[in-house]
């Protein structure tokens, strides 16, 4: 096999195109989160008085921090799965996908806990801005995590069916980058909403 010129097969070229399109789409979606956080920032900076409204508590950062870690773990699991299948280890891919799925579900569960905390603090949609904003931004994040979970479940079924190999695993690569995107958004959302 000649090592002089890197050979890109027709399939690899198509895969690279798909990857570029996917990344452009994720760039667009990053702007969606950026805009949501910008809105949060403007509304918070303009809010008269303390933040949140006096009398209403803030959500303690503990559970959201755990949720963010769950996202990071899911992304890490996907990354591991992608590199394993790249070396032709479908069984390890399936295992990694199961881990990613579990961490994703853990994230969603922890988000529900956060929302319950908000509700228990008697923060409703009509009160102040803090509650609705936290619901809206975390809701957006959770929606995207849920899409990731659904996709990972589909990948898992296909992986168990033996569909992926070292040469053919575009979907795993794409969704790994998706999870990286969700985890990155999760970190920023956590930082802006629950830390700052």
């Amino acid at each position, binding site marked *: 096999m000649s090592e002089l010129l890197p050979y890109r097969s027709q399939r690899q*070229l198509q895969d*690279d*195109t*798909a990857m*570029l*399109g996917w990344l*452009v*789409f994720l*760039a*667009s*979606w990053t*702007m*969606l989160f*950026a*805009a*949501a956080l*910008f*809105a949060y920032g*403007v*509304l918070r900076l*303009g*809010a008269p008085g303390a933040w949140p409204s006096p009398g209403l508590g803030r959500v303690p950062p503990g559970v959201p921090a755990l949720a963010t870690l769950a996202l990071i773990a899911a992304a890490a699991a996907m990354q591991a799965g992608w590199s394993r299948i790249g070396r032709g280890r479908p069984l390890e891919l399936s295992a990694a996908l199961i881990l990613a799925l579990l961490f994703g579900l853990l994230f969603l569960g922890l988000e529900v806990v956060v929302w319950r905390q908000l509700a228990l603090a008697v923060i409703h*949609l*009509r009160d*102040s*801005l803090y509650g*609705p*904003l936290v619901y*809206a931004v975390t809701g957006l994040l959770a929606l995207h995590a849920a899409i990731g979970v659904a996709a990972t479940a589909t990948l898992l079924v296909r992986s168990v069916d033996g569909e992926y190999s070292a040469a053919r695993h575009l979907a795993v690569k794409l969704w790994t980058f998706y999870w990286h995107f969700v985890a990155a958004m999760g970190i920023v959302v956590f930082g802006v909403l629950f830390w700052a």
Partner: protein
Amino acid sequence: MSLGFARRVLFPSDHKDVARQFFWAGLGFLLVAGCFAMLIRWQLGFPGQPVPAVGKLLFPAGRGEVPPASYMKLFTMHGVLMIFFALSPILNGALPVFLIPLMIGASNLAFPWLTRISFWAFALASVLALASFFVPLGTAASGWTAYPPLSSNVGMPGAGQTLVLVSLLFVGLSSILGGVNTVTTVIRSRAPGMGYFRLPLTVWGFFLAAILNVLFFPVIGVAVLLDILDRTLGTQFFAAAGGDPIAYQHLFWIFGHPEVYILILPVWGIVGDLLAFFSRKPAFFYRGTVMSLIAITGLSALVYGHHMFVAGLSPMLGKAFMTFSLLISLPSELLVLSWLNTLWKGSIRLATPMLFALGVVLVFAIGGLTGIYLGTMSVDLYLHDSLWVVGHFHFTLSAASLLGAFAGLYFWFPKMFGRCLDERLGKLHFWITLPGVILVFGGLLLAGYGGQQRRLYNPFALAYNQPLQTLGMLTSLFAYALFMGQLVFVFNFFWSLWAGAPAADNPWEVGTLEWSTRSPPPAGNFASAPRVERGPHELSDPEVQQKLGRDWIGQAESLPR
């Protein structure tokens, strides 16, 4: 047979078919939004008078005059439909979807299925927007800008405003998906030899507009979504008490200003190419033009605050926006100057596409210059929200984009439909349209200079506007003449579709790749992938003249030794 037709219409795999769908939709909405403009001009030219012929039909409550509530809906939906449902489908939908694969030597866009989804999202948006007219309390009426709290359910009750907002979400989805497709296609699917600096300027226009689409539609998505939540769930994001209405304006204009560049970048690209083609010489300073386009694209979001100079921004923030706004005028001026230099000592053919391209140069220069006042914060204290603003954006958006779209349509009609448009009717159309837009939008500028504001049902209820009433009437009369003049184009268009002369492969004798294949191109566009050897404006080269006996050579054509 009919099943095949249904498949072609509902699930077209050929990008050219999807392009035509965008095109018909855009033309249809252009007509509807144009009619709205005529009703607006009626009320401004003849305030309180019953609308002739259709007045009692449209506005049965009174004597047939436009009522104030309807007037608000008219100016709102004129803007919404023109921007998102007429200009965008043509300049960011039909033309790039049709032309990009052809111009870069590809057989289709990168993701053919995505092209379809992009159109379906647009179709759904269209249905929602049209539906808004038929709900109780009617369609949206808070201006295309939809500022809260007026656009909240307190200021604008009813489903109509909500439907329009939701429809904008789908327009956004369509534009983002289309943008992903375009960006990926231009980066990945160029034929061998088609380096970035051999791309036609038209492709650069489409490419940069697509980047802006991808990055900035999500921002208005958030603005609209939060407004919808306020309207439906009772949240207070932009409410008068407890929320911040100005937050909406920030989000809206961070999208809104790049949006105007999304609409004009394709036109800039098309004009750059057409001036070269019809001067029979390469575009002046191609690289400089591309750098200017990129610079404007990069700066486009940084200027957004000039829409908010009187909205209570801190003076320091205002100054920053003024600085960027005045700065961005410089590469735009460079573009116009490059165009003028392309003409220098050329061999100018005044075919209809060229006439329209020259028209774009004039109206865009006028429109752009009128913007300098608006970017100057102190002058904006007087001109904000006046008809000067309306005149400014109608010159740059309506006149320039429309003339540019016509230039593109006249130029690529043979390629899209396989027939030729009538040249004489085309020239007639031009000589009605150019003076028309200058007189109508010039009238707006003059009225705005005199202090008349926009979105006023009856401006002459204010005494200081009364001297401008004759001007308003004249502007309306010119607008009717302009509108009627478009019938020449409509007639020419449909007549030529059916009975126009069959088009040759390359009637304009230029070298870009779309002209090296049939008119219209077959599925797959090219018999074999072209190998590009030169740039898009290789015209009047002495060596080509000597060896081939003509003043043009195709981008993928080999020169014999």
